[in-house]
């Protein structure tokens, strides 16, 4: 069950149930565009759901504050790390705030949504 507004409109505010698996990331089969479950780098007891935007050694350009002007920064993701962002740029606390996260914090890959049934399917 996922909740929060950082992945809207892909995932709803509350009550979406997603199917996730815990094997792909151990085999290294995770790539940009995947929605993953990660352990928060600021609080190891919290699990976040975000999308991977860039893997190691790739460059990321992002806007520093989407609601306030057009300033943007470019960052190279260091080795062994990934850059994650929520789909809802305005309400997501992600790599734009705490930086790239080590790959070891990824806990699983989200495959599809199973509830509510009307929206079931891949993300």
């Amino acid at each position: 069950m996922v909740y929060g507004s950082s992945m809207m409109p892909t995932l709803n505010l509350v009550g979406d149930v997603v199917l996730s698996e815990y094997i792909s990331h151990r085999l290294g089969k995770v790539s940009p565009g995947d929605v993953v479950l990660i352990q928060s780098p600021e609080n190891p007891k919290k699990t976040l759901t975000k999308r991977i935007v860039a893997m190691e050694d790739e460059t990321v350009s992002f806007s520093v504050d989407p609601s306030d002007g057009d300033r943007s920064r470019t960052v190279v993701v260091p080795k062994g790390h990934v850059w994650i962002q929520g789909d809802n740029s305005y309400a997501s606390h992600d790599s734009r705030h705490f930086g790239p996260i080590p790959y070891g914090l990824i806990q699983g890959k989200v495959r599809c949504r199973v509830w509510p049934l009307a929206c079931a399917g891949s993300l």
Partner: protein
Amino acid sequence: MFSTLLFMDPVLNFTVFQVCIYLELDLVITDMGTQNIIWNVCKKYLTIGLVGITLTDRYAGVCPIRGSSMSPTFNPSLGSFTDDYVFLEKFCLDKYKFSHGDVVIFSSPTNYKERCVKRIVAMEGDYISNVNGASKVPEGHCWVEGDNSASSFDSRSFGPIPIGLIHGRVTHVIWPPQRMRKVDRRIRQDGLAF
């Protein structure tokens, strides 16, 4: 595939799944002569294997130590024939409560497939002195360093690590027998905090 509706722990899920399959197969093969004996032996090994995997994944485990970044605590001499084996406990991962001086095993932030063993020198909120002055360890992170500062690839190179990367805490050295003892929490007195 494991649904998040069941358990968040994949090993527990897998164990429950395997136990269900094993019970179903048990019902099917009940009157088959010699095949029964082989099946009984297989059942025993399967049970022991499952219990073993569950225990080592969630509660405690044994692990060899390679390298000399934690000398003299582990592997004190370069020419020793065997690596030290240590006992690590995973109960600390329940609440993620660590303290200064704990020796921990964690996934390396530069390569998730490697595991490193180092000592926690500073927790979140502490200040660490480095060449740029003093920097604060961010929330949810810890600063780890090896006991052998001269040859240790640790937080002085890759910065503070998120506590979520930690896989367990080392409590005892269990091999070789002449070095069997408890690993103490040792707090360094130099350059730790302002």
